[in-house]
């Protein structure tokens, strides 16, 4: 004769429930972590070093001031400087091999907006928004890191703070970013 314990009070059931909850919560946590972790780059480009020796952002990301996309540096842009340097470490050798084979370096873009958001760098640069405002303190990063909470509220927040109420009509208009 089994003890008359209701099913919800059995230990095995309770342990299973806890386990399932843990897996769900943990899985969600890991998933969120991975979306926020910087992706693996073909060359772990040290932004901090390049910024440290005085390279301007727009030297490599040339399109920012004139177009929608800042762009990623071409192989020859890297090689322009690095062919004068001794390939001291593995990364520099990688650069050299890309340049010798005339291959493009498959950089993985990090700061990407979804397809339905039409972001344009040029007006932002014209308005004097610094790169760090959105891309974080690149001077302290090696590879570029995705910035958290780049959502619509964040855009609107900044648009509101930086503009007059008249301009905010345009800057909060759906058609400014979505079409």
């Amino acid at each position, binding site marked *: 004769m089994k003890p008359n314990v209701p099913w919800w009070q059995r230990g095995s059931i309770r342990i299973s429930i806890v386990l399932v909850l843990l897996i769900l919560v943990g899985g969600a946590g890991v998933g969120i972590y991975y979306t926020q972790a910087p992706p693996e780059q073909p060359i772990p480009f040290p932004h901090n070093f390049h910024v440290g020796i005085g390279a301007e952002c727009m030297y490599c990301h040339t399109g920012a001031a004139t177009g929608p996309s800042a762009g990623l540096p071409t192989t020859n842009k890297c090689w322009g400087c690095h062919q004068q340097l001794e390939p001291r470490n593995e990364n520099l050798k990688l650069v050299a091999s890309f340049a010798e084979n005339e291959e493009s370096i498959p950089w993985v873009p990090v700061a990407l907006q979804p397809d339905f958001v039409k972001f344009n760098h*040029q*007006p932002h640069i014209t308005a004097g928004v610094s790169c760090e405002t959105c891309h974080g303190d690149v001077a302290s990063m090696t590879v570029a890191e995705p910035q958290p909470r780049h959502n619509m509220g964040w855009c609107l927040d900044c648009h509101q703070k930086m503009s007059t109420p008249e301009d905010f*009509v345009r800057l909060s208009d759906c*058609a*400014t970013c979505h079409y």
Partner: protein
Amino acid sequence: MAELLKEQEETQKWGMVIDMDICSGCQACVTACSMENNVPFVGEDEMAYGRGLQWMRIRRYWEGEYPEVTPTHQPMLCQQCGSAPCEPVCPTFASVHSQEEQINVQVYNRCIGTRYCANNCPFSARVFNWFDYETPAPMNSYLNPDVSVRRRGIMEKCTFCVQRIVHGRQQAAAEGREVEDGDIVPACAQACPTDAIVFGDLSDPESKVSKMSRSDRAFKELEELGTQPKVIYLKGGKSYGG
């Protein structure tokens, strides 16, 4: 009421004039619109069931009896109403008025697909993505990167080529000038072989559209519904002039 009308006068901006006297009905605008705006093609069976996704249609009716019979061709597109019936019915503001451009915007990524707006549009100007339509590779290469590709379950419609409007304004701002009449041309007007479609700023009394909209041939489709369309037709056909 008068104040209300005055306010509407002041808030109008982009407008289009279609001169039906010189519109030949050749459908170039339809193709141009579809190619510019990544409108998917749906195939014969779906077209036969009235599910073509053309943002622009040439409405063709016949007038008269043989041998005096003749078709009338009327390009029909979103009329970008000032008081649009599609806007208040959308529960999520996906169909929403652009205060800046004074056009009706369809925010694809906010649309949940109730299709209420389409029912409520007296011009039948809205179309719905019934499926995810495939554009087999490499044909997807021509898709316009300035226009979102819509997935299934989303309403879409003519945008007055808002991507060109935004681009034109940004271009003018970058060059440190105001947008000039003729800077911004939507795909249909650009292609129109007889220049029957003219686009411009209605708030500027000197613009080409403003001048044309003051023609005594001007009328608006279903104007009695009070939706204040921004597309103005110029009456055409054999009854006029001579």
